[in-house]
């Protein structure tokens, strides 16, 4: 029995490690991706040397170095678990060397590692803080080793090692205890899957969820728009979020700015894509964000600014994770971004506002084939129940160009305009191509607001509150 008891601490620590890994890997994996994307680590001597200008430089360096590998599946949870286990083991052994009870040492070690794991629930808590704790635990363990041999030497060792340790490891950040933010995790999940290009997965995640956040709906719509299906799915979730009513200002949260960057990129506005990417950078860890580095390289490549694109590609060359991506863009960028390049606006106008409606009009005036911008502009009008502007935009970009966009949603909205303006039979025939819609419209008029018509634009128009802008 005594022999088994000897292994209890090891068993407890291993079990704790398994729980920790499982939680972070299976319940919180997208937080790691967020951390990885929200920093930039360069394998360059001048960049690395910068770390040592700050107190705790070594901890910051190791933390940021390891964080870049969060890009790979399972690695985030593995790195974090190993770091926390090392802290636990070092603390446990140190306390044992100081002749505290093994059980007390075990409980305290597990409490400390659990507290640190809880700190990692927060997006602003960085791995470097845990590395800093690990560094101090190593110091404690060394002192404990000396202590067992010679107490005086241990005290002398402590005095000698304190300042260098402070310079290398600094003081760890401490967070107030918080619950895991599983809603944010869901937001990160759709955001990351969108970023990784797993559009089908985004749709499945949102449609399979029982609760939706604005962020989830935003990415759902963004995916649908790029597949030409925004009008087919716009009213699937209400209230729905397009992002076209946001404007970026000094108080806009970083995540919103980053989402706007994705929206502008999808729409094809490279001026605003670059602006939102720069702004996201400004509010990222050390004003650097690897995801935005990629985007800045991409948008400058698309807009034909090869010098600016090369600036960012050179930076990415120095990363251990994205160097191949940078190479690929250099070699195959023209074919990868062929569609985007074709949609670039070559007309110069100037505006003092980042009003998305105006931006989309500019994009469509330059390229009427920009279906993503077309659906976003029409759907934005419809969300606001602005039938007059919807009709104006529909005429300008669909009827005048002789490319009517025959989507059920638009046909339903056109019925409202035609009915409200006492349109002639000719006009009805010109706009409404679907007999089903026409018949359904007549039925709806007899039963306005009937939940049976939920999902039609008529029901939205009558019953659902439009977003306030």
């Amino acid at each position, binding site marked *: 029995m005594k022999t088994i008891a000897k292994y209890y601490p090891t068993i407890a620590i291993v079990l704790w490690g398994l729980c920790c890994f499982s939680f972070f890997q299976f319940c919180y994996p997208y937080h790691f991706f967020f951390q990885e994307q929200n920093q930039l680590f360069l394998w360059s001597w001048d960049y690395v040397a910068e770390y040592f200008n700050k107190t705790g430089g070594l901890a910051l360096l190791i933390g940021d170095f390891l964080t870049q590998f969060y890009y790979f599946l399972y690695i985030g949870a593995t790195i974090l678990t190993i770091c926390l286990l090392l802290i636990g083991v070092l603390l446990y052994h140190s306390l044992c060397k100081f002749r505290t009870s093994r059980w007390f040492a075990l409980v305290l070690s597990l409490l400390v590692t659990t507290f640190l794991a809880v700190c990692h629930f927060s997006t602003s808590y960085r791995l470097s803080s845990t590395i800093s704790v690990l560094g101090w635990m190593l110091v404690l363990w060394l002192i404990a080793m000396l202590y067992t041999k010679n107490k005086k030497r241990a005290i002398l060792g402590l005095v000698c090692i304190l300042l260098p340790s402070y310079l290398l490891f600094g003081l760890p950040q401490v967070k107030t205890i918080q619950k895991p933010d599983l809603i944010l995790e869901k937001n990160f999940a759709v955001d990351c899957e969108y970023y990784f290009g797993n559009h089908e997965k985004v749709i499945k995640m949102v449609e399979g969820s029982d609760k939706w956040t604005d962020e989830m709906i935003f990415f759902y719509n963004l995916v649908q728009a790029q597949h030409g299906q925004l009008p087919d799915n716009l009213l699937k979730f209400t209230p729905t979020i397009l992002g076209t009513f946001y404007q970026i200002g000094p108080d806009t949260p970083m995540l919103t700015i980053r989402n706007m960057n994705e929206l502008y990129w999808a729409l094809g506005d490279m001026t605003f894509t670059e602006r939102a990417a720069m702004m996201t950078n400004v509010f990222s860890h050390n004003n650097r964000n690897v995801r935005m580095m990629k985007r800045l390289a991409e948008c400058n490549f698309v807009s034909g600014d090869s*010098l600016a694109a090369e600036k960012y590609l050179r930076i990415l060359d120095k990363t251990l994770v994205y160097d191949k991506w940078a190479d690929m863009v250099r070699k195959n960028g023209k074919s990868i971004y062929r569609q985007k390049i074709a949609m670039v606006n070559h007309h110069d106008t100037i505006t*003092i506002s980042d009003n998305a409606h105006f931006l989309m009009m500019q994009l469509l005036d330059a390229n009427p084939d920009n279906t993503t911008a077309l659906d976003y502009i029409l759907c934005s009008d419809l969300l606001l129940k602005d039938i007059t502007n919807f009709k104006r935009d529909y005429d300008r970009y669909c009827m005048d160009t002789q490319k009517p966009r025959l989507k059920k949603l638009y046909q339903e909205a056109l019925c409202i305009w035609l009915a409200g303006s006492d349109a002639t039979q000719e006009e009805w025939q010109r706009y409404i191509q679907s007999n089903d819609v026409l018949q359904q419209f007549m039925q709806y008029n007899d039963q306005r607001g009937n939940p049976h018509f939920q999902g039609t634009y008529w029901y939205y128009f009558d019953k659902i509150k439009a977003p306030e802008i």
Partner: protein
Amino acid sequence: MRIISIICVAILFLSSCTPSPQDVVKQDELPPIYPDYCDVTIPQNIAPLNFLLRADCEAIEVKAGEICLNARGNEAVFDMDEWKELLKQHTGETLDVTVTALINGQWKEYKTFNWQIAADKIDPYITYRLIEPDYEIWNNVQIQQRCVENFDISAIGHYEKLENRCMNCHTFANQDPNLSMMYVRGPGGGAILNKNGQLSKLNIPGSVYFGFSPSGRYITYSTQKIIPAFHSLASKRLEVYDAASNVFVADMQEHRVISSPLLSDSLKFETFPTFSPDGKYIYYCSADSVSLPQDIKQLQYKLVRISFNEKTGEIGNKVDTLFAGRSVCHPRVSPDGRFILFTVADYGTFPIWHPEADLQMINLQTGAIDTLTIVNSQKSDTYHSWSSNSRWFVFASKRDDGLYGKPYFCYIDKDGKAHKPFCLPQKYPTFYDNNLKSFNAPELGKGQVPFDVDDVAKAMKKDAIPFK
């Protein structure tokens, strides 16, 4: 002892392994070095021009005078003492520089270029603001001071000490470190005036761009309502214009503001004022107001001047036009009064995002205009400041990537001829490649400013001195 021996052996082993050129093949092209230091004129007191070769090379050899530098990789980093000695030995001379690189197992010797080492020194310090090129929002802004004779940097405005506020340009009076001013924005902000290291906070209403009079008693400044606007053409990016702007003079002794109807005409935009070195004129830019933003391309600023009496503080009553044709920004008169350097752009008042923005120089004695072809690039070249001896100026250029401004130094010889400029050297040649901040509004100074970040933070807590 054993560890030290191992380290020494390892260092010796590594250094002995640096290959030296053999079977060299001569190339008829200049080496693709970055920053571009080929055929530049440099002052005798500049820090080592460390550079890298934009090639996938295994080793590099650089021969410059008595220096023969051999290194693995593509970076040429000079020893500070050897560099200083080299410049001392060759001051006033032209030095040949030969770069040989080991590429794909073959040593290639590039065409020799030269460094002309001017005997005229440059002011040893520059101050600049480090900020992302998109100026609409900010985070972690710093104003730094760098000694150009070495690589020492100190912060004189740091976000950590100043509640992450926005800070604007730091400007010297006559390049004198004992008289200078900078702005710290936001609630409770103001102009921080440095007089021999004593800092005070001033509330000069609406002041944006400013310049000191030679005596330091006055500053001339502009007030503007700044509007950011966006171009739909991605390569043009941001435009900034003034919805209104006027020029004033502030008496720093009596804390009063002096105005003139000629400098605050509601039908004109007046901006970028600066005193002449004798204090007899205020040079500034003036444009007829147009409907903005739609008529931005018609917004043309002229270079004008108005007389000023430093004894009485009176502004003259006649405005003379010196230059018109393209839109002028940032006029700066050389301390010897011979030249006026300014930026020209196709239109507007914010040349930072105008790739066509170039520097030009008027000889105030002859009226001749130098378009400074050797100085300008395909991207924005602007925001300049003179060295106290009038032989050097620094300016911010976006020539490398069109986005991030870097300080470039240009030599003006005794005949008024401009030489090819060079970029501020850095300790690590990869610095600019990795850097994601613009060097904004570089200003040359004769010495180190006698205050630091903590002094600025303390000054910020003081009550601002109001101006009447």
